[in-house]
């Protein structure tokens, strides 16, 4: 036996890097931005605070849909089912079972996650685009079923009583602040969850499935399990967000709770325009949506038409969306979820296994 040759210990000659300089700078400035945003209710008017709260929970919904469609390949057009179920669960648990609204929000998520299992039993039988329409049918069925129960206010809806509302905060200004922080908290939690999930083993499995399902199966990835898990996690998060949204609105009806346009169409447009399959994309798409909506506020539904056209054009000519283009052009990854090999002997090698963000 001779001494170890230079190639005998490859594990010592490189390390795996999981961040980039841009991502570290971004994380630091992001933390500052969150702190600044958290103080918003103290120095801004209530209209702005309410708008930013709405932006925050839409960002959360967009992240959840992106996780489902962009990473797990489950293009759902029925996520409004979980928003509505979450909203109704919260109202029922608070009104009929005396839950405190905070506990109710958490329970709304649990309820949505429980409901996602029978829903998955049906829709996972359908593939690809048929899965999409299948989730839509299920959401419609949920809406119609809820409307059948007169105890839930049937078609006209259900309100929280003032006594329950006062347990959150005695006056409207106080409630607005709490809702604002809760919405901001959900947005930050959504970003953190998606980021950490994608960096975990599940994320690796999802990335592999996204790139090629047959190839990922051949190396032992249980695609069904990873997809089902993502579906249930996203249902939990979407239901919880739904609970929060309707706690804020104080009233839920089948039309509002299970609105395709409000909870799915808008969210899909945000993700597609910003960049599907990236964490940064939904942030950009969300901002573009709100800018458009505020600019075209006086022109009826034209903001939706413009958003739809822009989304179609992006899907046709720039499938990766705005952020996909930026990432490809400038190699900029603010939420690096991949792994990068850095050789320790100083050679400029940076072979990537799955790319910092998108392969």
């Amino acid at each position, binding site marked *: 036996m001779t001494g170890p040759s230079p190639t005998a210990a490859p594990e010592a000659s490189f390390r795996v890097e999981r961040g980039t300089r841009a991502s570290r700078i971004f994380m630091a400035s992001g933390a500052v931005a969150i702190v600044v945003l958290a103080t918003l209710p103290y120095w801004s008017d209530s209209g702005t605070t309410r708008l930013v709260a709405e932006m925050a929970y839409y960002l959360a919904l967009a992240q959840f849909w992106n996780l489902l469609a962009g990473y797990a390949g489950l293009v759902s057009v029925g996520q409004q089912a979980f928003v509505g179920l979450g909203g109704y669960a919260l109202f029922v648990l608070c009104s009929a079972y005396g839950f405190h609204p905070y506990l109710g929000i958490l329970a709304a998520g649990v309820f949505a996650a429980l409901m996602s299992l029978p829903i998955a039993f049906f829709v996972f039988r*359908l593939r690809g*685009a048929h899965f999409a329409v299948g989730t839509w049918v299920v959401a419609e069925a949920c809406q119609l079923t809820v409307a059948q129960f007169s105890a839930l206010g049937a078609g006209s809806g259900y309100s929280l009583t003032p006594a329950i509302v006062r347990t959150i905060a005695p006056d409207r200004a106080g409630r607005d602040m709490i809702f604002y922080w809760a919405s901001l908290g959900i947005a930050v939690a959504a970003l953190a969850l998606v980021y950490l999930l994608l960096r975990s083993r599940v994320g690796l499995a999802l990335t592999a499935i996204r790139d090629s399902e047959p190839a990922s199966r051949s190396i032992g990835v249980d695609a069904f399990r990873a997809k089902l898990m993502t579906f249930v996690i996203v249902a939990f998060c979407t239901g919880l967000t739904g609970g929060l949204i309707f706690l804020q609105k104080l009233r839920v009806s089948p039309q509002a709770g299970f609105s395709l346009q409000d909870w799915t169409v808008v969210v899909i447009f945000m993700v597609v325009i910003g960049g599907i399959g990236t964490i940064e994309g939904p942030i950009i798409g969300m901002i573009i949506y709100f800018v458009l909506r505020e600019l075209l506020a006086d022109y009826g539904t034209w903001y939706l038409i413009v958003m739809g056209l822009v989304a179609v054009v992006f*899907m046709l000519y720039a499938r990766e969306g705005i952020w996909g283009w930026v990432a490809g052009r400038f190699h900029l990854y603010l939420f690096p979820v991949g792994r990068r090999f850095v050789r320790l002997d100083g050679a400029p090698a940076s072979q990537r296994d799955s790319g910092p963000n998108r392969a």
Partner: protein
Amino acid sequence: MDWYSIIAQGCLIGGLYALFAVGLSLIFGIMRLVNIAHGDLITLSAFLALIAAEVLGLYPLATLIIVVPVMFALGYGLQRGVLNRTLGESILPPLLVTFGMSIVIQNVLLELFGADTHRLVVGTLETASLTLPGGVAIGVFPLIIFLVAVAVIGGLQLMFYRTDIGRAFRATSDDSVTVELMGADNRHLYGLAMAIALAVTGCAGVFLAVRTNFDPSIGPSRLIYAFEAIIIGGLGNLWGTLAGAVILGIAQSIGAAIKPDFQILAGHIAFLLVLAVRPNGLFPRMRD
């Protein structure tokens, strides 16, 4: 409750649903495209019929001679100009492009025509009925729609199995790459397929406009009925789609007899039951 009558009515409404579904079924069969905007294209056809009837003063059913060719041309242009670009490995582009189109069509119609409901009136034909043996009265007009659906599907089957273009459609459905090697132009074939699909859709839109009230928002639920009929019947089988549409119609009819606002939900439940028991539908001819 008169079951005979309920089932007869359900069958006939199934004829209209079959017309909704045929176009969707056809393009999925030929190019594996699920057109989310399909329902809104039905609504668009209904509005085209409304314009043709009001501007040209045509008898409502005579608007078919305008609407069907317009939708045929629109289908060819849409496929060649937009949808051919989306076909490929990933399911996202066709799904999300047609999804975007659906929202755009819906909201443009809303901006142009407002949210009011419309209907085309055909006079006596609407109320005419005939009595079946057994004493069940059925409407003449729903019967006409059902017969048109049967005729359309029969005609399409003849085209698929008796003509050169039909053979080309079947071949590209089986293996689009090899067909190109044999000298076929898939882009043109897909254009024709979408043109035919939207011609049928145009026909469905005109009948819808006469049979029920419509407004810009009704598209998505027509897409869902069409989709349910196809999945119940089994992919790639037009007669199966008709059977699925009839089953859906009967389920809705029974639901409505139990409780009026149970009609649509009963259809969804029937669909989910079939999905649970036979995930590939009742008479599948191809796998997804």
